[in-house]
């Protein structure tokens, strides 16, 4: 191997190294949307990072957005963990969407703190494919702890936040706001370490 290749390879495989947008070196998973991949560092959802998703309202495809990335994880035998979701992640719909129910774990934590604690435990263990956490904590230290825990494992961490926190500061690697637009989902990357702010229109599979 050429020395340049070796270095490039090393850069690509070291999660903490960011070398500008086009060479952005990170472990990532295909989002399933070319237009979204193009906006993200490493051309996909970054692993071992805090990814913040801020839907401006519910029922706009905020979960559907993740399905193309979650399906292959399930096929690899890795679990998807829902922590303190605002509603029941409806099993018949999950199964139809291609997420086998034996790969789904629902953590019904009573408090925001317990939810974050569970997420940290699971992330550290590093075996879950993806952790979907709903928390509206504004404590910077709490968010940093989540990010540190994410770094220890090799999972995807999606933190769902309320629209009211759109302007709040956050240590997240990637922050994305979601809103509906003419029957599709408008995805705006507000912040992206190693990438830049941009937006895309995603055509999700919509009912009716």
């Amino acid at each position, binding site marked *: 191997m050429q020395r340049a290749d070796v270095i490039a390879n090393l850069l690509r495989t070291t999660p903490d190294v960011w070398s500008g947008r086009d060479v952005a070196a990170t472990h990532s998973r295909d989002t399933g949307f070319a237009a979204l991949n193009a906006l993200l560092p490493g051309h996909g959802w970054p692993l071992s990072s805090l990814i913040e998703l801020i839907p401006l309202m519910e*029922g706009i495809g905020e979960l559907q957005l993740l399905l193309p990335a979650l399906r292959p994880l399930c096929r690899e035998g890795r679990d998807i963990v829902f922590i303190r979701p605002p509603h*029941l992640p*409806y099993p*018949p719909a999950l199964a139809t969407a291609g997420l086998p129910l*034996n790969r789904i774990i629902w953590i019904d934590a009573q408090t925001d703190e317990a939810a974050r604690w569970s997420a940290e435990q699971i992330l550290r263990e590093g*075996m879950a494919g993806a952790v979907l956490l709903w928390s509206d904590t504004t404590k910077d230290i709490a968010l940093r702890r989540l990010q540190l825990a994410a770094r220890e494992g090799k999972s995807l961490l999606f933190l769902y936040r309320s629209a009211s926190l759109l302007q709040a500061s956050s240590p997240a690697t990637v922050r994305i706001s979601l809103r509906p637009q003419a029957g599709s989902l408008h995805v705006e990357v507000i912040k992206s370490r190693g990438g830049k702010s941009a937006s895309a229109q995603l055509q999700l599979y919509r009912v009716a």
Partner: protein
Amino acid sequence: MLWLCLHFSSLSIELREPRDQFPTAVVDRQNSRRHVIACNKAARQAGIHPHMDASTALTLMPSLKLVDRSRSQERKALQALASWSEQFSSFVTLDAQRWLLWIEIGASLHYFGGLTALMEKITRGLGELDYSFATGIAPTVEAAALLTQHADAAPVYDQQAIKLAISALPVCLLAISPTAVDAFRDVGWQYIGEVLNAPRDQLARRFGPELTRYLQRLLGELADPREPYRTPSTYRRHLELSFAIDTTEPLLFPLKRMLGELQGYLRARDTALQALQLTLVHEKQADTVLQLGTTQPQRDAQSLWLLLREMLEQTELPEAILELILTVNQFVAPNNTQLDFFDDKSKHEQSWSNLLDKLRARLGTNAVKHMGLQDTHLPEKAWCVINHEATDKPAIAHNSPQRPLWLMQPRLLHTLPALLGKPERIECNWWSGDDVQRDYYIAETPEGSRWWLYRDVQSAQWYLHGLWG
């Protein structure tokens, strides 16, 4: 037979949990005299030692705390140690009066890889249980006990060698009455060898037949059958705390020991548990009972301790705790992949279930859910929570109608968003009299949020039931 005898000379103080922080001595009463039988390190440093008169000890150290010996606690502690020891031998016996425990190791020496390896295991294990002890190894029960009194006694393997090994020890180490020891001294005998060399019939005449029988058992000339200790088939360990405690954190220390004992018990029987109960006894209030369940068969003290720690952190105490009771009523076959040989997959599953157990311990048993499908048309009944990870084939619903990713408790709607498409009629339970007739629609709010709602056919009212998340 080869006996390993363990002498727990400080048992009466070391069994006290929580540990005494201040100088403390355990005293026993003999006639009207009270004397120290054991003390903690803080007291030892002040010059207190066993056999010292209680009044002398108090003069030496007025702040010394004196506590009365509890023979029942000593017996319980020694029985728990006997249960623990059964992992090394099928024959364990004890003498609670003398704080002695014997383990027959002749049969298991080879299995454990020789005496050095076995002793290392036992020493490490007792270290984890936090007891100090002295050891003696000999072919007879009493010789092994005697050798515990001598710091550097080498193991005696051969019955013929007992006499030589103990001859140079002082007579006061013999397990005989103090008056007999005094009588020996009067005769001028200082060492055991001198007693053993005396003609037996003379000894019997002067000191009684009991003494000669003891000497014969000591040397192996007379059989010395002992009752093996048998742990009851359900496990119960009862600990009275040395003082009432009103937070759960100090419980972690006694629990470490209790679970260590339990681990030995489980190993001895090559069994494991999936549930245990910890009862915290209060003075007036009803007991606080913690039920711990694990996903996989478990017998590792450390894992169980971590789980109980999570539970205790979440436990509100109505009152201070006086006693602890650890009970296991049911045992299950150990999952051997978990205990010894890992492959990556079972290791993965094992650490996953350990992790989920930890979450359950902290958040409540029902907080960690796995879900399954149920064969019914009624949307809110078409799923269920299943207790353990489904190991069977993944449930995938084929050709089922479109369903939203979020389901909610039906919420009455007063204004309707724009309905999209045709309704889906869901009818069921007409046979059970609990009739349900609904027309489900997909709708879109002006803001662009998509809802799943239905019109109850009978009442003609509209309900929001899900969101297309």
